[in-house]
């Protein structure tokens, strides 16, 4: 084994999440056409790209909500795409937050957050709820714990959805355009929470349209275009000095539309 190959192997070993040449189609449309990406521990990676570029599909594939057509995904060197792995067990190590919050409307905010710990990790009702309360207190929603989700503002719902996703201490947190459905005035509080999660060391992969935020918070940015990663690098490099003409064009169009 050459020195370079050994270094590459070591780099891959450090990665919490390793995505290797993933392909996914929906009927005739190839949405992901060979995506490879490594995400290290404590790293925040932002996926940018136009709608239909495959960002959301990639996140869903990582969480096994979609089945890949080819390629492999590894979490801590365990292959998730192996049909023999227990999908429910895998999903407990990967949190995901959706654009539309998807809180459970028939449960209080507290029970939303406590659900996975109670039902999947078999913690006692008391313990799970106490932990959920601590999380909600930390993000300033402690007094909303016993409200139903539809009583909360969009920003509050999305923040509750985020602590629901991290309540089980997942290895990776996936954020799928979590601010896209929010009123502009509510975006800030959600972004602040993401910043806070980064500081506590949560590994995050997020699909986003918030370029300024990505520049500020993401360690690396990957630009997806038409199902492939066209450009990948530090947030500053990709967002301020993009190498690829397509990236430049996308960013220009994006800034022009604002």
């Amino acid at each position, binding site marked *: 084994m050459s020195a370079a190959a050994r270094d590459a192997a070591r780099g891959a070993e450090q990665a919490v999440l390793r995505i290797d040449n993933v392909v996914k189609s929906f009927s005739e449309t190839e949405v992901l056409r060979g995506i490879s990406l490594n995400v290290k521990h404590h790293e925040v990676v932002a996926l940018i790209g136009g709608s239909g570029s495959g960002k959301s599909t990639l996140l869903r594939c990582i*969480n096994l*909500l979609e089945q890949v057509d080819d390629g492999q995904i590894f979490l801590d060197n365990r292959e998730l795409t192996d049909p023999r792995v227990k999908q*429910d*067990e895998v*999903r*407990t190590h*990967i*949190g*995901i937050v*959706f654009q*539309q919050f*998807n*809180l*459970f*409307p*028939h449960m209080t905010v507290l029970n939303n957050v406590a*659900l*996975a710990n109670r*039902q*999947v990790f078999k913690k006692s009702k008391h313990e799970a709820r106490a932990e959920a309360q601590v999380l909600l207190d930390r993000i300033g929603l402690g007094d909303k714990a016993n409200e139903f989700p539809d009583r909360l503002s969009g920003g509050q719902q999305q923040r509750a959805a985020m602590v*629901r*996703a991290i309540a*089980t201490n997942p290895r990776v947190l996936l954020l799928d355009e979590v601010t896209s459905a929010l009123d502009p005035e509510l975006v800030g509080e959600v972004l602040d929470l993401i910043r806070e999660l980064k500081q506590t060391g949560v590994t995050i992969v997020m699909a986003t349209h918030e370029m300024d935020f990505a520049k500020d918070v993401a360690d690396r940015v990957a630009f997806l275009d038409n199902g492939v990663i066209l450009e990948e690098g530090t947030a500053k490099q990709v967002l301020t000095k993009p190498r690829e003409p397509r990236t430049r064009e996308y960013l220009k169009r994006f800034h022009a539309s604002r």
Partner: protein
Amino acid sequence: MSIDLEARRPSAIELERRAFRRHQSTRSVIISLVSTVLFAAVIWFAVVNSPGWQQVQNSFFNWDTIVQAFPRVGEGLWLNIRVLFYATIGVAVVSLLIATVRTLRSPVFFPLRALAAGYTDLFRGMPLIIVLYLVGFGIPGLNLFARMPLEFWGTIALITTYSAYVSEVFRAGIESVHPSQRLAARSLGLSYGKTLRLIVMPQAVRKVTPALMNDFIAMQKDVGLISVLGAVDAVRAAQIETAAAFNFSPYVLAGLLFVLLSLPMIRLSDWYTARLRKREQMGALV
């Protein structure tokens, strides 16, 4: 909020509007009251002055016969209530099972799914009275089971027919829950079964509660049909009393008792529907 509602005085325009609305609603109440009384009076006079009223009154509304029939018909009604109790439990269990099977997506479950679909097709189409005959006289005829009372088979027939209807109501409820709810639950690591039980079902049942209550009320009166098997329920008891007294009043009594039985549920159902409407329309007027 620091606005003191007590201190706020309505303007002259608002006071005039309120006076007008009060006047309008008083007028509406008076009109509806008068028209109702008038209508009832017309019907009453038409019936009472019809040529056959004397005979009809005597053979359907004979107070003495009703009083005489009451103990037996009441005892029969108690059987109806018991049958209703067990049938409700049975229908809840069987219909939930069928609804769940019908919503399974995996191709592995095709035979089960087809079976469940066939079941609902068959028993929603077949008249209850025929199911009662088939189950009540057919199954005991196989001599497979110990001799069971007639009302037992009547209950089974009711469960068989009503489960077919109610399972479709449940299925509609399950499918009305947005797929993103399942996605969110599975993403937390919940299994298929737990997702169904803890996330989908509670939301589904809430959505179809008015329809379920309606089916329950329908079943409440259809328990009277077990009389065709010979079980001595309220209807059968009324039939016996009618034959003994040569007077139809016991039937009227049984009918009224069934109405009384269903009233609490009807009111509860109305109340619940109104509450749902209020919550969903957020206080809008139209």
